[in-house]
């Protein structure tokens, strides 16, 4: 044992850091994880509220809301929602949810909290860089929220910020001035924060595994976080490159994305030669891996939670790892399926169709393995396991419609309709959200030393499951009727008038779904202070290393000695063993005693 061991032992003996060093400017990965989680939850409340405004408008377009007119005199000028405000809601809802909720909560919160605990390390490889990553993330959150409050409001171009609209500045719309500048700044900061985090994750998982923790003994959560971090390191720099070029177009007068002959306000712009499609290529080269950055950690966590509550080893561990690796690899050669109607050559479109449909294979392998894990199991139906099972349900529902959209022939009809909205919400928003909920209910005891209320948890689960299907299932039908996305007033179009009833149904369901989330928020925050206390280290009788530590885990994670790993993470119901779970630290043969 070296000098550092002594230092750590000293830290165990003197944990009296002040409140600010311990809970605010902390370099402890667990605190940073919880900071990420609370920040992302705050962003989720903002992003969720924005979608409620959208649903209000879509169900009752043109309706006067005097109360809202008093609170938001600009957005609801004359008590009716302003069209520019509606479009800015679309942008901000998408941006906040994709980056500042899903990416942040799955990799930022769970990644930070779980990586050292599950691999048997005391902290991340670079704790200071880790803290810096959180503070830059927080700054990016403040910058993106401030876009809602500047003159002209938030940007109008959607979370994809297609050029040339995004490149032309205020002349192209009220939010495209200061709002768009803040959007780019926030994404730039988010990218830098994500790169610092990703660098830390990969390094930590590769070099800081404890004795005996070979790569093929890692819990699937760790594999998913490793692959996600690699994806982030390869994909986010390309977004940064695009954002730099866009910034030069906006403030430097260059024409990377602005073509010749654009007339704005009766004035011919001097730009020439730029290529608006270039933005789409760069954005989606990043954007498609980004959806896997969101879904892969969800897959990993759901796998571990399922195995724990099914009391069975995960079905085909190796194939789970290989399928995640192949999904990650394929994610870099499918971006063109977002651009089938951009005028791309149909031959190229066919190539992207093929690569896209190939992704269904590893995804189906994973689904098959989850079902194989559940098959014949005596499942313990806790809230965490319900959400993990719910994850499979919504992932499959959303994934199936992806096969339609991935084929260019069908996509040309369905592109930019509510069918797409239904697809990506189920598969890359609700599915990761369900896995994140499962993760929160599962690891809450480890984070705070208390349980969340199970009755409220189950109410939350069933309300959410019914709610998301009530909201997103009808959207497929709306899409097939031709209902476009991002439109302010569906009643403007005669052929969409029959959709009014279904739009009202979706909106009312969305309001109910949001109300159910209040139950979760109340359960979460009340349980931190008043939840039932956890009396043991391992309340779920799980096998992975974090359950060898007290609830909540103290500074330094493990006592004076780091744990030694003797087996994989899925020894449930081992024949002949005394218990139906064998922790990773139990030496071979000792499980029978």
């Amino acid at each position, binding site marked *: *044992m*070296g*000098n*550092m*061991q002594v*230092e*750590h032992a000293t830290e165990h003996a003197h944990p009296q850091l002040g409140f600010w060093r311990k809970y605010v400017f902390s370099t402890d990965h667990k605190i940073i994880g919880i900071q990420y989680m609370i920040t992302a939850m705050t962003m989720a409340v903002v992003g969720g509220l924005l979608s409620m405004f959208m649903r209000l408008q879509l169900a009752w377009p043109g309706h006067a809301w005097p109360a809202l007119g008093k609170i938001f005199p600009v957005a609801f000028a004359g008590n009716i929602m302003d069209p520019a405000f509606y479009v800015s809601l679309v942008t901000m809802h998408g941006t906040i949810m994709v980056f500042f909720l899903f990416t942040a909560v799955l990799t930022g919160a769970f990644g930070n909290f779980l990586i*050292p605990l599950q691999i*048997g*390390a*005391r*902290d991340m*490889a*670079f704790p200071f860089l880790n803290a810096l990553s959180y503070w830059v993330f927080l700054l990016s959150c403040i910058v993106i929220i401030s876009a809602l409050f500047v003159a002209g409001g938030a940007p109008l171009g959607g979370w994809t910020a297609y050029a040339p609209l995004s490149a032309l500045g205020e002349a192209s719309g009220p939010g495209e001035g200061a709002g768009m500048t803040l959007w780019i700044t926030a994404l730039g900061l988010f990218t830098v924060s994500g*790169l610092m985090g*990703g*660098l*830390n994750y*990969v*390094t*930590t998982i*590769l*070099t*800081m*595994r*404890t*004795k005996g923790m*070979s790569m093929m003994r890692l819990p699937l959560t760790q594999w998913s976080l490793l692959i996600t971090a690699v994806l982030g*390191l*390869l*994909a*986010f*720099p*390309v977004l*940064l*490159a*695009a954002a*730099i*070029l866009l910034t*030069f177009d906006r403030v*430097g*007068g*260059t*024409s*990377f994305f602005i073509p*010749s002959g654009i007339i704005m306000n009766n004035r011919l712009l001097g730009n*020439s*030669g*730029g*290529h608006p499609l*270039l933005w789409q*290529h*760069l954005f989606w*080269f990043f954007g498609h891996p980004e959806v896997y950055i969101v879904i892969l950690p969800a897959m990993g966590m759901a796998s571990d939670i399922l195995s724990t509550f099914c009391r069975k080893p995960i079905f085909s561990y190796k194939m789970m790892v290989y399928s995640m690796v192949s999904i990650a690899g394929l994610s870099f050669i499918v971006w063109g399926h977002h651009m089938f109607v951009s005028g791309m050559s149909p031959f190229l479109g066919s190539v992207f169709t093929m690569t896209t449909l190939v992704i269904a294979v590893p995804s189906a392998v994973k689904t098959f393995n989850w079902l194989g894990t559940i098959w014949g199991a005596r499942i313990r139906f806790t809230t965490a396991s319900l959400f993990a099972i719910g994850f499979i349900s919504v992932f499959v529902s959303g994934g199936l419609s992806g096969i339609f959209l991935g084929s260019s022939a069908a996509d040309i009809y369905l592109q930019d309709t509510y069918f797409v909205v239904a697809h990506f919400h189920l598969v890359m928003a609700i599915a990761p959200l369900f896995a994140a909920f499962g993760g929160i209910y599962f690891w809450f005891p480890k984070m705070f030393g208390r349980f969340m209320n199970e009755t409220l948890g189950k109410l939350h689960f069933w309300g959410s499951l019914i709610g998301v299907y009530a909201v997103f299932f009808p959207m497929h039908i709306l899409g097939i009727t031709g209902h476009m996305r991002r439109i302010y007033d569906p009643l403007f179009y005669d052929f969409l008038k029959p959709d009014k009833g279904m739009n009202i149904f979706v909106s009312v369901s969305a309001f109910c779904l949001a109300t159910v989330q209040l139950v979760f928020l109340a359960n979460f925050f009340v349980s931190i202070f008043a939840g039932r206390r956890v009396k043991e280290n391992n309340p779920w009788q799980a096998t992975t290393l974090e359950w060898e530590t007290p609830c909540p885990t103290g500074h330094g*994670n*493990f006592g004076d*000695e*780091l744990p030694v790993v003797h087996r994989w993470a899925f020894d449930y119901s081992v024949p002949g063993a005394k218990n139906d779970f064998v922790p990773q630290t139990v030496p071979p043969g000792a499980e029978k005693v």
Partner: protein
Amino acid sequence: MPVLTEDRVSDGIGAPPPLTPPSGDGRGEPDSSFPVSSKQIATWLLMTGIAMLFAGLTSAYIVLRGVPTWDKIPLPPQVWVNTLLLLASSLTLELARRSVRADKVVALRQWLGITAVLGIAFVSGQIVLWREMTASGVLLTSTLHSSFFYVLSGIHAVHILGGLIALVLVSVKAWSGRLSSISFEPLRLCATYWHFMGGVWLYLILLLVFG
């Protein structure tokens, strides 16, 4: 036991670093079977990210190269002067690394100092180059090719500035006697990064001149 540095021996700053890294503490390299150190991996990952940034910019360059208003601009001779400065700095940094391996403390400090001077000369040379070009009427907005020239060389210069900061930190370590033939990882990683950014510059020049 090899003599670490003159400073350490003379003022007795502290015990020499252990020959093997501390083990079993969960930081640095514990009983990990992984053969590469954390900082080494972090440097490689950083360079991977930077490579993807320039790959993204290169793809934009290749897409836009075909448009009629591309108008390639000639690069002034100052470009080659700067390129030589950067290549020379890579050479001197390599000599610094050899010096530390042989525990030649004085030579180490000299070569590090020369490298920093050459690095600063490169950035100054780039500023001279930009001023020269704007004076001759080639601006950021003149043609798409000139836009790319300024953006690519600017982003590269920012990364070189980062390398210079690393070089200063390593130099501080060298002066305070914390580098020796058995412990010079910061210098090694700084050199890896510096050579990499030198390579990126050569690549960018080839792209801008021949691409």
